[in-house]
């Protein structure tokens, strides 16, 4: 494949729909640099004012848990049940806790 077919690296797009809301993955765009990435992302994913803020990040820079490792990876949190409020016994009659 010739170089002229290359559409640049892939960037993942995250949009915040309103101030205070979490950023949510919207999709991906191709672009050759950061400015172009954020402009392409705007034109592609926010033609109807879907966001008040946006992040783009090169896809290759994202570190992800592999699905086959997910069970073992997240396992340690399962045996720490004392992290949940329901673990604790509070005497009857105590209020607002």
């Amino acid at each position: 494949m010739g170089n002229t077919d290359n559409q640049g690296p892939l960037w993942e797009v995250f949009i915040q729909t309103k101030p205070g809301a979490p950023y949510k993955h919207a999709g991906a765009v191709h672009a050759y640099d950061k400015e172009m990435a954020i402009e392409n992302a705007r034109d592609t994913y926010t033609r109807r004012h879907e966001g008040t803020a946006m992040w783009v990040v090169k896809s290759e820079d994202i570190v992800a848990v592999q699905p086959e490792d997910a069970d073992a990876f997240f396992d340690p949190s399962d045996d720490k049940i004392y992290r949940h409020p329901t673990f604790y016994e509070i005497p009857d009659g105590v209020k607002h806790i």
Partner: protein
Amino acid sequence: MDDKLKNEDPELLKEFQAKIDAEVKIEPKDYMPEAYRQHLIRQISQHAHSEVIGMQPEGNWITRCPSIRAKKILMAKIQDEGGHGLYLYSAAETLGVSRDQYLKWLHEGKAKYASVFNYSALNWADIGAIGWLVDGAAIVNQVSLQRTSYGPYSRAMVKICKEESFHQRQGYEIMVHMAQGTPEQKEMAQDALNRWWYPSLMMFGPHDGDSPRSSLAMQWKIKRETNDELRQKFIDKTVPQAEFLGLTVPDENCKFNEATGHYDWTDINWDEFWASIKGYGPNNKRRMKHHQKVHAEGAWVREASIAYGKKKEKKEVA
């Protein structure tokens, strides 16, 4: 067992089907049978190519819109179609095939697009008919695909469906204006309906019995409803809309059937359908040539952009 599954690990395959049955979405890095991946590569890229090729018949009308209002609307719609193509290419790329490769397959004739875009938009009423019927048929299909089992495809569909409704309504508005206009305008609207009705019905693909890949696609919930179910839904929705316009669909057998609760209709001319799929439709060559030409003419932009991107990267490092 299906021949296409003989190389799959039976345990993994069982877990995979259990996830599908439990309505758990499949994500890009999850295990998936090779046949599932191949089906999605074919279906999502065909869907993406259709959005992009579909810009051509409408694009011809940008310079000939009857008003500035109509022109702004048409440009916004066509921009949306390009955007829809991009959402879909982005979803398709999660399957491990690059955008460049998808375009290459299109240019080599290995990938298809919806045959409906090989028909010509002959006059302004066609722009109305395309929005009303072609986008209308696409909506029926895409609403169903919002529930597809592949996560990225499903998310792209949700976003597309939100935007598609504007497309259909702007088309119907054009039809209303023309149907209520002069007798000549009404005649143009009827003529456009006559020419776009069957191509729109063809958009749902062959009958279920002639759709070889359908059963696995249903079992894996890539498709949630069959071609024939979706087509009937579209007919039932659309015929009353034609009646409201005072127009008639070009099918004398198209009547409401009290017993079935659906409209009866005369079957599609499948020879025409298959000819168009195989590349002998009215504009296949023109559509593909145009896409190849624009892609080739854009080569210098990509080359310059790569050089620019590299230069900036160096500066940032230094």
